[in-house]
């Protein structure tokens, strides 16, 4: 404070030196300059003090008789009053300016913190991360170590204290948290130097934040207006996220409903076709009895067998679909060569290939992949069957695999008419054309849909494309991951 009134002391000193050469009015102006400087740069009460000091100093130093108060001084009453008014007025104006500046700074701090919260909270997914990021942003903004715990209906005090993870939690803080949970307090309270603040938007309590006073303890109450403004924003962000999640859930539900409808029409069609053949063939055999020539009889029997197998495949597809979609049966992944799965799939589709050429191109050094062999065999079988069904009988099918940095690619290429645009379009968005069966007739749809589901539970992708020179090209990409070490190397010993 001594320094604060320094300008007045300086003014008095200069005045003393120049006293012989100046008029009292000039000396008054000099002191007034000191008052203005002090009032402009200090809180209002120091301004007042400085003014009084200046008046007393002026009276003692510059009005004859010097160095004492005398009655004649009253002649300078107007000078004293003007000095006082100027000092007070300047002090008042500067304090107004200062407050305005402080408000602006506070608003800017709130706005920038809100912006940071918006940005950083938008980028995280889990509730834990949300709490962590919120606490980090608040710590940065307030300079006091902050911790955040979310609260839901029925959250206990223990859970909150646990969530806040305060090492120095004491009885008072515990009562404070309880009071905040019960909503019996205003938005904040201080306990033992700690500041505990509700994270609230509207009527809903979202969580609790605590500010550590630190060592040595610092006052945190002046952070309350800032916190109130910023934490409201946190509540708004949380609310927005919740709403978005609810919308997404509805969208998924609607999408699933649409999928089910499309699936149902495809399934009923695909199941009835083989059943029609089976029932027709069987009843022909029963009613025709011996009148049927042996060749026809054999053909009918063969049809029954073929169509039964087709139905079995379809039902297998449906079961795998349910298995993957509902997660009812766990996906059992283990490390294995893709070659084995491809071998099983080729063996399985052999009857349907009917002697068609299949080129198999598998490099010997393919890495192991972590897959559920039953599910992945289903994928390869489906894709090969699709190719066999849609490409003309004499054209070759090619299945190849290769390893890239991140993934293992399995590619099946045929020389048929290629995939229809509707399937390609549906394939890219993983949805199904509205209101009609997935893939007309013996369709691509169901099988590919299931393939996509299975591949995606493996963290991979299924890409549908038509080759530039015709024919469909389906690519399964599976993430390589980190394969375990193989068994130790052994020398060959048998002769």
């Amino acid at each position, binding site marked *: 404070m001594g320094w604060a009134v320094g300008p007045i002391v300086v003014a008095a000193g200069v005045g003393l030196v120049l006293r012989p050469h100046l008029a009292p009015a000039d000396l008054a102006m000099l002191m007034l300059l000191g008052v203005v400087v002090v009032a402009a740069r200090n809180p209002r009460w120091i301004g007042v003090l400085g003014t009084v000091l200046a008046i007393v100093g002026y009276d003692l130093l510059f009005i004859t008789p010097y160095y004492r108060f005398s009655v004649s001084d009253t002649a300078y009453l107007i000078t004293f009053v003007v000095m006082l008014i100027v000092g007070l007025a300047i002090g008042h104006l500067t304090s107004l300016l200062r407050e305005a500046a402080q408000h602006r700074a506070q608003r800017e701090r709130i706005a920038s913190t809100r912006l940071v919260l918006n940005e950083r909270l938008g980028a995280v997914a889990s509730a834990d991360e949300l709490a962590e990021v919120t606490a980090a942003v608040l710590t940065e903004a307030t300079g006091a170590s902050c911790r955040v715990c979310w609260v839901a209906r029925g959250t206990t005090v223990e859970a909150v204290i646990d969530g806040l993870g305060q090492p120095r939690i004491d009885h008072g803080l515990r009562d404070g948290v309880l009071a905040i949970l019960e909503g019996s307090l205003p938005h904040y309270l201080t306990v033992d130097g700690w500041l505990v603040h509700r994270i609230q938007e509207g009527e809903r309590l979202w969580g609790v934040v605590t500010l550590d006073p630190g060592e040595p303890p610092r006052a945190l109450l002046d952070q309350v207006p800032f916190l109130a403004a910023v934490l409201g924003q946190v509540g708004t962000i949380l609310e927005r996220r919740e709403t978005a999640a609810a919308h997404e859930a509805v969208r998924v539900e609607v999408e699933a409903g649409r999928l089910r409808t499309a699936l149902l029409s495809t399934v009923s069609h695909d199941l009835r076709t083989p059943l029609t053949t089976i029932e027709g063939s069987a009843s022909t055999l029963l009613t025709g009895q011996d009148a049927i020539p042996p060749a026809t009889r054999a053909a009918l029997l063969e049809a029954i067998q073929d169509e039964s197998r087709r139905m079995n495949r379809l039902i297998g597809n449906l079961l795998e679909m349910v298995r993957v979609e509902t997660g009812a049966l766990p996906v059992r992944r283990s490390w294995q060569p893709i*070659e084995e799965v491809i071998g099983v799939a080729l063996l399985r589709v052999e009857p349907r290939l009917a002697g068609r050429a299949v080129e198999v191109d*598998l490099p010997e050094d393919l890495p192991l992949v972590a897959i559920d062999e*039953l599910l992945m065999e289903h994928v390869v079988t489906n894709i090969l069957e699709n190719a066999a069904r849609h490409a003309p009988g004499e054209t070759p099918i090619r299945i190849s695999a290769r390893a890239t940095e991140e993934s293992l690619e399995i590619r099946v290429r045929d020389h048929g008419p290629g995939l229809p645009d509707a399937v390609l379009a549906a394939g890219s968005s993983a949805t199904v054309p509205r209101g009609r069966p997935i893939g007309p007739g013996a369709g691509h749809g169901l099988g590919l849909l299931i393939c996509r589901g299975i591949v995606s539970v493996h963290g991979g992708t299924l890409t549908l494309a038509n080759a530039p020179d015709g024919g469909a090209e389906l690519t399964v990409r599976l993430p390589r991951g980190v394969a375990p070490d193989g*068994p130790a190397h052994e020398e060959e010993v048998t*002769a």
Partner: protein
Amino acid sequence: MTRNAPLVLVVEDEAPVRRFVRAALEVAGYRVVEAESAREATAHAAGWRPDLVVLDLGLPDGDGLEVLQVLRDSLRIPIIVVSARGQEATKVAALDAGADDYLTKPFGVPELLARLRVAMRRGLGVVRSGPDASWRAADVTLDLARRVVTRSGTAVHLTPTEFRLLALLAQHAGGVVTHQQLLEEGWGPAALEQPHYLRVYMSQLRRKLETDPARPRLLLTEPGVGYRLVESDDGGLTS
């Protein structure tokens, strides 16, 4: 039908399935006795003393695995279990509990008869599974005693583990051997934690024995269960 024809106990709750299985087996020269429940199965097994059992694991009145245990304990005969696709864990449990082989529903008659044939040979002791046996299919031969493997008349060089795995498969030629059985044979019980060892070795064996390793004809994969070496061309292991 002769009195000496082998007797097969078919345990299956669905009458139409029993009907076609009986028809197929009788045509193939077997005698058949049917059971439609777990209770009937154990009673018939004791009363009829069958030579082989075909057991559906999905019985309405009991756990198929328990029935398997009872039959296994009371009779020393081959048991072939039947279950649906997607129940590989059950199949593996049954095989590890002593079943000889399995069939996946729906199955064709040729498949059923092949499994029965292999299991009967083993059950009747026709097959010599001792260390002096040999196996031969396509252009590959295996002589267990002399530890010699040839392909198209040329010796194939195997590592000790490869040979142990192939020998175990050959002793069960035509039948399935589970992953667990092979892992224990190859690397001991500790290797059960390292199932990919087996995959790597089977892949090596195929490269050495198969004409087209990507489309195996001898060493077949039974997805989710294990491996099967095809039957020897002369019917079984012979000395």
